[in-house]
């Protein structure tokens, strides 16, 4: 008689309620970041799309350099540059349909611009002008979110609401590697998964949260591996490969739109500039690391692909550069005009109707301004 036979009365069986709710295997990301450029997968990509991405990357880079220049001229209070991350920013905008929503973080003005927001309006916050310069409903771009990861539950709620209303709208939320440590990241992913909300999370892992490198931020195999803990697919992609990011995002958006629920995407990229113009990156990283990444520049990668496939010649490059210069010149001109702010706006939008208290305060300020005017 074997041991197992002796044990008839309490032969092991799983606890009654337990059953795996999802098969984890398909949720796990690939071992290596997904790449398109320079691989055979590139041949499948529509040349029009590649050219479009290229034009946007060139424009995006120029936007970054122009905005950085504007900080030096005192025309922007602060600028968190996305130089080096343009592939993510641009692909995020292009992977969405018009009816979809984008939830950018404070670094993602470029994604907003690529989606159609006027660059001057996108930079309004960073200029020291009003908090949000654009009407979020116009291009369906939520206000830039400064408190990290707090925009993620908003994206989930909006996507969920759209689904409840029967609209096939997808929300795409951007967050940084540092932002994944916040509780809001966790709660947002969990709500999204439980609700099967049509939302896509794109983590731009640019290696740093200000000065803190990824190794001090997480011990995970990759940030994309976090997906499995929510029962949603995780994807890992080379964030400097515009075609790859675009494809992975588009797949996830399609999946979400079709009712398949959320996806977590980690795009591996690098912040070439300092955290903002006010930051001194030499305090926490060496030049050689930056140089290595310059060799993996998103524009160069795509330019190679296009050139070698005969899809881009010197004239094409020049056209892209010209368009970028035109945008930059326009941006510079318009940013050189002083914004006109109305102090009365301080009270106008705190509530639908100002409270009696705010009316009193507005009158007080008005009296002060009038007095100043009398003096001036």
């Amino acid at each position, binding site marked *: 008689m074997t041991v197992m036979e002796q044990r008839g009365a309490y032969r092991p069986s799983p606890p009654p309620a337990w059953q795996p709710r999802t098969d984890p295997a398909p949720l796990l990301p690939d071992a290596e970041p997904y790449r398109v450029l320079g691989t055979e997968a590139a041949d499948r990509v529509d040349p029009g799309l590649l050219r479009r991405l290229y034009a946007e990357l060139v424009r995006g880079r120029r936007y970054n350099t122009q905005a950085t220049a504007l900080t030096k001229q005192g025309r922007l209070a602060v600028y968190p540059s996305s130089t080096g991350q343009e592939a993510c920013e641009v692909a995020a905008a292009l992977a969405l349909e018009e009816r979809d929503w984008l939830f950018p973080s404070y670094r993602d003005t470029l994604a907003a611009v690529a989606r159609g927001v006027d660059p001057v309006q996108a930079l309004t916050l960073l200029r020291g002008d*009003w*908090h*949000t310069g654009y*009407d*979020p*409903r116009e291009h369906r771009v*939520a*206000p830039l979110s400064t*408190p990290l990861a*707090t925009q*993620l*539950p*908003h*994206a*989930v*709620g*909006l*996507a*969920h*609401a*759209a689904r*409840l*209303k029967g609209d096939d709208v997808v*929300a795409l939320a951007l967050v940084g590697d540092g932002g994944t440590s916040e*509780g*809001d990241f*966790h*709660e*947002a992913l*969990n*709500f999204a998964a*439980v609700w099967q909300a049509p939302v896509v999370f794109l983590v731009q892992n640019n290696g740093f949260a200000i000065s803190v490198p990824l190794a001090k931020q997480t011990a995970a195999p990759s940030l994309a591996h976090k997906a499995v803990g929510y029962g949603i697919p995780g994807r890992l992609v080379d964030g400097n490969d515009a075609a790859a990011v675009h494809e992975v995002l588009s797949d996830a958006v399609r999946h979400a739109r079709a009712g398949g629920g959320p996806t977590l995407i980690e795009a591996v990229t690098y912040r070439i500039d300092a955290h903002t113009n006010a930051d001194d990156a030499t305090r926490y990283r060496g030049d050689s690391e930056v140089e290595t990444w310059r060799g993996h520049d998103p524009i160069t990668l795509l330019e190679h692909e296009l050139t070698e496939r005969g899809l881009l010649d010197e004239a094409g490059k020049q056209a892209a550069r010209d368009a970028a210069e035109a945008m930059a010149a326009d941006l510079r001109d318009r940013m050189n005009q002083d914004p006109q702010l109305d102090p009365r*706006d301080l009270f*106008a*939008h*705190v*509530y*639908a109707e100002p*409270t*009696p*208290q705010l009316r009193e305060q507005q009158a007080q300020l008005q009296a002060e301004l009038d007095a100043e005017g009398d003096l001036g």
Partner: protein
Amino acid sequence: MTTVAVKPATMAQALTRAMRDAMADDPSVHVMGEDVGTLGGVFRVTDGLAKEFGEDRCTDTPLAEAGILGTAVGMAMYGLRPVVEMQFDAFAYPAFEQLISHVAKMRNRTRGAMPLPLTIRVPYGGGIGGVEHHSDSSEAYYMATPGLHVVTPATVADAYGLLRASIASDDPVVFLEPKRLYWSKDSWNPEEPQSVEPIGRAVVRRSGRSATLITYGPSVPVCLEAAEAAREEGWDLEVVDLRSLVPFDDDTVCASVRRTGRAVVVHESGGFGGPGGEIAARVTERCFHHLEAPVLRVAGFDIPYPPPMLERHHLPGVDRILDAVGRLQWEAES
């Protein structure tokens, strides 16, 4: 002539009815929170809503308050009118970043383009024998956050009217429900058309000439009781129920204090840095020359909310209120 049998209702029932009617009137109203669906909430205030309107309209969320409020923000951005339940006062704290940095600021941030018509229901206050974290008075935090309305009912009828008005508001409202009044009853007939109080108006619950008790929420019945008891001492106390802490009804409050010349602010919340300081200060600013005595405060002590067996020592009661009234320098008058 027929007599209409008006069944007394509890405040909890009036709140349920307010949500029910709001949901019936407006398909964009969604109730969400921990245990609000199948269970009907730990206080049963959402009882029956999931059954009547389905789980998509009254939703049991995962257990994460920042997530609840954060997703509600997104839902409001898309045009819904979420009504969020926080299970207890102290369990709203995890959602404070969402509340302060987004809920209160979104309209202002977008120059009015993106209002957030959100109601956040928070059962608050003590007196129910709740263990730690179940009896906090957190209104000071909400009052100090511009962009929020802060409303709290003290009667069954107001519970209905103010909650309807809050859900109908295009601004975020923190709706504070005095836990220990959930089971208070009044002859309120849910089948009658209900008048909806606008937000921002205080009401004189009892007229009097000697002094004004300024109060709200759970302390209103205590003040009314104190006013009755005060008659024995020869004081005729007026009781003002604020109903809304934000916006604050300076007119009603100051009219009363100018009439009586004396005032005591009464609330359960800790005194230091609590609502009473603001109220006393603004009344004094506005009515200084009408005051025979400083505006006094009767509040909870400046301590973490005590355990059930000690809470009676902490909560402002009739005696403590009368004691404060007695210190309003009556001799100065004569």
